[in-house]
């Protein structure tokens, strides 16, 4: 018995020792000379280790990333912490056009006229004051399960209106715009398409046609959607235009063709543009500028698609093969004035809530 507890004690000591040994390793004395640049991002942020290491070496800096939740959560977290004093980070990446106005209103960011802006198309430059600089974009579209539609010999819907037809009853799953960012994007697409007067009656028709509402993307995609590994009941889901490419790249066995595709009809998708910016009050302005330049540089822009499944804003950046093959880019995605979104978002979400969940 004593032996056993000794072994256990030794194990505990070993593990704790491992932890204690870990702490100094993380901050060696030499590291104190290195500057630390803190970057706040949303959870979906990813980048090649190699690129970041290169940036760190070139600028003798250590980049510390904080993941603050999804896009909305991260922004609100920054607003809260900046209200209570200095900002939590030097650079913020992951602001999108649905939250753009709020960030500008709260005066979170400092302007920076990055040289690379000259090469970025004007359609992405939604902030003329250059406080929020576009980095990438992606479209929230309805994904469908190709095999399902083939098996049931049903034509794929060609517009948002089609979704209210009886043959598509109960086939679509969407996310709650109050708790999910693709859910909010889809709501905005319907408002852009049907106008401020018409969107509610459109949703009423969707509701009558048995649209399924869940709280988050994970549930929608992996529990309800029939085209994913979860093999759910709905063959259509609100997801991203790049999801079919991800299905191809992350397939279990190499596939010749993606099992899903997106409905990219005019006005059926919502374009999310993601921005980066320098947080107001940073002590490391010069380094922060360098990091923004780094995000707009060709190597980073070409890294973006496979890391985050979004498109680079830099036209010169080359796209990976799977993107060209499986990801569709809508010709006319829906858009709304960021100002209008900022004013109405809560009211719209509230109205949607009353309409759909009561």
């Amino acid at each position: 018995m004593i032996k056993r507890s000794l072994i256990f004690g030794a194990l505990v000591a070993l593990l704790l020792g491992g932890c204690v040994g870990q702490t100094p390793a993380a901050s060696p004395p030499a590291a104190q000379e290195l500057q630390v640049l803190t970057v706040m991002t949303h959870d979906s942020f990813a980048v090649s280790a190699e690129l970041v290491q290169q940036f760190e070496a070139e600028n003798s800096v250590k980049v510390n990333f904080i993941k603050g939740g999804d896009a909305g959560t991260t922004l609100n977290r920054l607003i809260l912490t900046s209200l209570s004093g200095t900002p939590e980070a030097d650079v913020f990446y992951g602001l999108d056009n649905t939250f753009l106005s709020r960030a500008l209103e709260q005066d979170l960011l400092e302007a920076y006229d990055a040289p690379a802006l000259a090469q970025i198309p004007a359609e992405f430059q939604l902030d003329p004051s250059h406080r929020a600089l576009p980095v990438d974009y992606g479209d929230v579209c309805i994904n469908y399960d190709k095999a399902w539609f083939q098996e049931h010999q049903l034509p794929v819907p060609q517009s948002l209106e089609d979704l209210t037809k009886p043959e598509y009853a109960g086939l679509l799953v969407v996310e709650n715009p109050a708790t999910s960012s693709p859910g909010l994007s889809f709501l905005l697409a319907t408002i852009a398409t049907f106008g401020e007067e018409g969107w509610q009656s459109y949703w009423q028709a969707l509701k009558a046609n048995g649209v399924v509402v869940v709280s988050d993307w994970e549930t929608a995609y992996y529990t309800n959607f029939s085209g994913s590994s979860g093999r759910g009941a709905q063959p259509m889901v609100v997801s991203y235009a790049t999801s079919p490419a991800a299905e191809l790249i992350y397939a279990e066995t190499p596939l010749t063709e993606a099992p899903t595709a997106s409905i990219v009809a005019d006005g059926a998708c919502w374009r999310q543009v993601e921005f980066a910016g320098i947080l107001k009050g940073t002590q490391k302005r010069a380094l922060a500028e360098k990091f923004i330049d780094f995000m707009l540089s060709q190597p980073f822009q070409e890294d973006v698609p496979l890391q985050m499944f979004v498109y680079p804003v830099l036209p010169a950046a080359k796209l990976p093969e799977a993107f060209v093959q499986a990801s569709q880019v809508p010709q006319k995605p829906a858009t709304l004035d960021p100002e209008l979104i900022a004013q109405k978002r809560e009211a719209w979400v509230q109205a949607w809530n009353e309409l759909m969940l009561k």
Partner: protein
Amino acid sequence: MKRSENKRVLRAALLWLLPAAFLLVFFYQPLFAILRLAFSPAFDGGWQGASAAQVLKPLGFTLWQAALSTFLTLLVGLPAAYLFSHFDFKWREALRLLSLLPFILPTVVVAACFNTLLGPRGWLNLGLMAILNLSEPPIRMLQSLPAILLAHVFYNTAIIIRLVGSAWSRIDQKLVHAAQMLGASPWQAFREVTLPLLLPAITGASLLVFLFDFTSFGVVLMLGGPQFATLEVEIYTQALYMLNLRLAAVLSLVQLACTLLVAWLQSRASQPRYGKAAVSAERANLRPARSAGEKAFIAVMVILLVMLILTPLLSLITRSFVTLEAARGERGQIQTGFTLRYYQELFQNRTGSLFYVPPIIAVRNSLVYALLTVVIATILGLLGAYALNQPWKANRILEPFFMLPLGASAVTLGLGFLVAFRQTAWSSMPFPLLIPIAHALVALPMVVRTLLPALRGIPSSLRQVAGTLGADEPRVFREVDLPLLLRPLLVSMVFAFTISLGEFGASSFLSSAQTPTIPVAIYRYISQPGALNYGQALAMSTLLLVVCGMGIFLIEKIRLPGEELF
């Protein structure tokens, strides 16, 4: 007389010192900081006050589902506690250990498990459709109130089994036998002898289950669906999506007030009224089944527990080893086959991402946090339980405040941590240390709840005898209290360990991106489309189950020299 009274108060105050300081610094301070911010003029814009409906509707639903869930959990948990504390049967230890595992699973994984079992294309529906020749899945219970209730029972039955079972196994059967000898029927003996002795443990365990259900978040969001909102879900939505921090703060206060009220009621109900009863050693009550009735009871309970707890776990584990690949572009037949691909893939950083987590590192991070949590929560919990056990009037008022961290909204507290610990000296300390501290905040009430009934059950005569025989206080603690407290102490260590391993919110909120835990890694996989990502999330979850199972196994193997004497 007066002197000894003063001494007692001093003693209680000294015992209180450390746990109270911990709670003040790490719980009440951040809570206060965020509430102050919420009610500051910065959040005045457009505030029209909370309407009664905004508060009462989520409150009503929260209370209703928590009460119902707790009742159902007791319904399963109490017979199970009886089973584990009285009968020795094959696989008893394994089943007892397995029953704790749901506790650590992230909700997103539980949702996936339930889906593979009960979903529209789950095997239960597929089976029923095949047998009954139906064209539509007959069971539609995901995204409904029953799904919420089922998940709560799935998660929390272990609390009842451990807490009540531990108390039940320490009741001296001689008392029950004596009652029966004096002519009491088994039912009378149970009602008059066992139940009163068991009541503090039952109410304590029910309180914990109630509070866990009361602050339920992920289960309601993912399994219940958007038409259900508990206070916690509303707080999250209001604070982080609507930036209506003030409404979130109001809701948080309502939630805290309810917690305090429930904790206070519980502490009233669980005051031991029957004095101290003799206690017996852990396994003394264990015996094989004798009558056919007992055998049937064991069989029914084992089957029930296996169905409730084991099948979802098994479906998860199986799925992590099985491909369901079809040439899906054209979808011919779905081919199933054994695969280790998901596990192999875990060890590869395919895209060279900076945020790739080698499984070993995630396991190490999780274990380090879990062990620190166990150390912090056990030491503080032990001190706290002793403090509460002192005959001091203020204790009655102070006790509920110990439970409060369980009822605090994770979002509110998380934001409080961010606001409170960035400006001060704390910001210079490595941020991840706040993670085990946050975990310990949740674990502390569990530890106190587990130890207190046991501590109150130790007859003071034992201590007095030891004292008269010349033992000093440390020795009395070592040789009288500790052996009697060892079991409950291990129970609370197991809880602290599992709470920390499975915790996701604080870990993702407070860690910098480079020190992820296993649950954080699971979320990273499952938040991306692709069969491989899904498979890796399940493989990582299986890994979490294995790590947790091994940890619990090791903790339960701790023995004190000479413990068998009791």
